[in-house]
C-alpha cells in the first residue's frame, strides 16, 4: 500500500463509547492545512477514558458496544467518520490483547502506523491520553516533539508549528531540525476544517513492544449532567469567582450562562471553596479557553486566572472593586454588585433575543 508523499499521520482520540472524540475535526483540519491526513484509530482499546492510550477494551469497558458491533464493523464506522472529517485513509489498529494497559499499546500502534505511512509529521491531541502517546512515541523514535500547538503551516523546509506561551502573552514558532516532527495540538485551538473524503479503511497489524505499562484496574466515566457546551470548546463562557459567596446563588449565574448558550467556568478560589467542580476551573492550573465572549463575574483577575482566558475575543467584567485587575483587560467593565447586575443582564438578553 502506498501513501501520499505529503501524508500527515493523525492519531485520533476516542470517547469511552468508542466514537471519535470532539478533538477529531480540529486535528484533521490541522493536518489538511499541511498535507494529506491519514488517520489512526485504535479500535480495540476505545472504551475507557479517552482514549487512544487507555487500553480498556471489551474486558471491562462497555460490553454493550461489543455485543452490537464486531470490532471490524467498528473500525469501518470510525473510518467513515474520519473520512467525513477529511482523512484520506484510516488505519484501524486492533489492540485486543493489550486490554487494560496504559498508553504503551497505543504507542506500539502509532509506531507501526508511522513505519507504514512514512509521514514527516505525526499529530496527536494535547489531551491527557493523546499527549502521553505522542511523548512516548517521540522518545522511543528519537523524533523532535512540539507540544500544545495552536497552529500549523508548511514552508520550503518543512512543517512549522505555532505555540502560545504564558497564556497568550507571547507567540512562538518552532520546527524540527530534521526528521519526523511529532506534534500535540491544543484541543479547540484549530478552526480549520478539512474537506470530506471517500472512506478508506485499512487494518493495521501491530507488533507489541512488550514495554512495561501500568495496569488500568477500572474506569469511571465522568458524567456530564449539564446540557451546556463543553468549557474548552464553548463560544461563550460565563465565569464566577469566590465573591459568589455561596453555591446556593449559582442559579443566577446559570441563568445568564443559558441565555448566552455559554459554558460555566470558575476561578480557582471558587473551586477551592467548593462552589464549582474542578472541571470548571479556568486558569493556570485549570482549563485555558479562547471563546468569542468571556464574562467574568466577581473575579478579580489574578495572573493565575488571566492566563487561562486573556485570549478571549471579547471580555466583559463585573466587579465590586473598581481597581480589580480584570478591568485592565476587559472590553466592557461594570463596577457594581453582581447580584443586581447579573439578573438584569439576563433579562435584557432574553428581551433582545425575543
Amino acid at each position, binding site marked *: 500500500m502506498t501513501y501520499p508523499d505529503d501524508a500527515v499521520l493523525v492519531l485520533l482520540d476516542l*470517547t*469511552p463509547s468508542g466514537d471519535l472524540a470532539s478533538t477529531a475535526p480540529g486535528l484533521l483540519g490541522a493536518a489538511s492545512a499541511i498535507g494529506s491526513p491519514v488517520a489512526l484509530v485504535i479500535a480495540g482499546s476505545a472504551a475507557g*477514558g*479517552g*482514549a487512544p492510550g487507555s487500553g480498556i477494551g471489551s474486558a471491562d469497558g462497555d460490553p454493550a458496544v461489543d455485543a452490537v458491533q464486531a470490532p471490524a464493523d467498528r473500525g469501518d464506522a470510525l473510518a467513515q467518520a474520519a473520512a467525513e472529517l477529511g482523512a484520506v485513509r484510516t488505519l484501524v489498529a486492533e489492540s485486543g490483547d493489550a486490554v487494560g494497559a496504559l*498508553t504503551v499499546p497505543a504507542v506500539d500502534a502509532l509506531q507501526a502506523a508511522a513505519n507504514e505511512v512514512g509521514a514527516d509529521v505525526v499529530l496527536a491531541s*494535547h489531551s*491527557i*491520553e493523546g*499527549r*502521553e502517546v*505522542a511523548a*512516548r512515541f*517521540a*522518545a*522511543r523514535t528519537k523524533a*523532535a*516533539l512540539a507540544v*500544545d500547538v495552536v497552529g500549523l503551516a508548511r514552508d520550503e523546509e518543512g512543517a512549522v508549528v505555532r505555540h502560545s506561551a*504564558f497564556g*497568550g*502573552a*507571547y507567540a*512562538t*514558532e518552532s520546527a*524540527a531540525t530534521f*526528521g519526523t516532527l511529532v506534534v500535540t495540538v491544543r484541543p479547540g485551538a484549530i478552526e480549520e476544517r478539512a474537506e470530506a473524503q471517500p472512506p478508506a479503511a485499512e487494518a493495521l497489524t501491530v507488533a507489541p513492544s512488550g*514495554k512495561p505499562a*501500568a*495496569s*488500568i484496574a*477500572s*474506569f*469511571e*466515566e*465522568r458524567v456530564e449532567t449539564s446540557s451546556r457546551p463543553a468549557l474548552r470548546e464553548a463560544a461563550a463562557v460565563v465565569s464566577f469567582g469566590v465573591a459568589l459567596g455561596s453555591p446556593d446563588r449559582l442559579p443566577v449565574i446559570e441563568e445568564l450562562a443559558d441565555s448566552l448558550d455559554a459554558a460555566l467556568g470558575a476561578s480557582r478560589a471558587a473551586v477551592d471553596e467548593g462552589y464549582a467542580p*474542578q472541571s470548571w476551573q479556568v486558569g493556570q*492550573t485549570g482549563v485555558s479557553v479562547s471563546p468569542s465572549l468571556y464574562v467574568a463575574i466577581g473575579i478579580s483577575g*489574578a*495572573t*493565575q486566572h488571566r*492566563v487561562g482566558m486573556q485570549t478571549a475575543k*471579547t471580555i*466583559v467584567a*463585573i466587579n465590586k472593586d*473598581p481597581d480589580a485587575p480584570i*478591568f*485592565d*483587560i*476587559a*472590553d466592557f*467593565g*461594570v*463596577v*457594581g454588585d453582581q447580584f*443586581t*447586575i447579573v439578573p438584569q*443582564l439576563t433579562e435584557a438578553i432574553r428581551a*433582545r*433575543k425575543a
Partner: protein
Amino acid sequence: MSESLKIAVLVKEVPDTYGDRHLDLETGLADRGASDAVLDEIGGRAVEVAVSYAEANEGTEVVAVTMGPESATKALREALAIGADSAVHVSDEALAGADLGLTAEVLAAAVERLDVDLVLAGNQSTDGLGGVLPAMLAELLGRPHATNLDAIEIAGDGITGTRASDFGAMTLSTPLPAVASITDRLPDARFPSFKGNSAAKKKPLETLTAADLGVAPENPEAPRSILISVAARPPREGGVKITDEGDGGAKIAEFLDQNRLIGEAS
C-alpha cells in the same frame, strides 16, 4: 506493605505566576531575571508526597532533581527545606533552551545514575504546561508510567492511584520501578520550618554537567525541536469601564448586542 524506597522527585524553577512573566524576545527563553523565580508549586506537592512516605517508612531516601540555570539551586534548597534528603542539579550552559527531547534525555540519565525505585513529578509545570516529560522519561528508562494522579498510594513494591483522564477517573496500578506524576489535587507542600530551612543548608547538593551524565547537547545526529520566531502579543488594553447606576446589566446587554454576541433565540 511498607518499605524503604529511593525516590527521585523532579522539581523546576519557574517564574512566579503571581507576577508578570516574560519571554526574552531574542532567545525565546523564559526571562528568568525579569520575574521572581520560585519552586514550581506542583513540584513542591510532589516533594511533599515523597517526604510524607519517607516519614512513615524509615530508610526511605528522597532526592530532588532539577535541570536549570545556576539560580535553580534556590528551588532545590526549597525542596530540601520541605524534607528531601539530598539534591542533584544538572547545570550546564549548553543546556539553555534544551528542547523536550534533550531535557528528557538529561533527566533520564540523572535518574538512572541515582538508581531509584520511583520517579515522582508534577503533572505539568506552570510555565511550560507541556505535561509530557514524565511519559518521555518512562519511555527512555523502559519503565511504566502512572501519571496525572489525583490520588496516590505508595507501597514498597508498587503504586496505585487515580488518574484524572480525559473522560473520567481511571484506577491504575504498577509495580516499581516506575515513573509517576501527580496533579494539584494533592496537598500543598508544608511550609518549611525554621529547623527545615537551616537543615537544608547542610544537606548534600550535587552539581553535574551534561558531560558528567554522558549526554551531548550539541549532537548533530539528534533531531531537535528549535525555536524559529518569538513575538510578544500586544498587551490587551482595557476598554470601557462604567459604574453601575442601576442600569449596568442593561448596558452590558446593549454592548453585547452591538457586538453581535447575543445568539438567536433557541
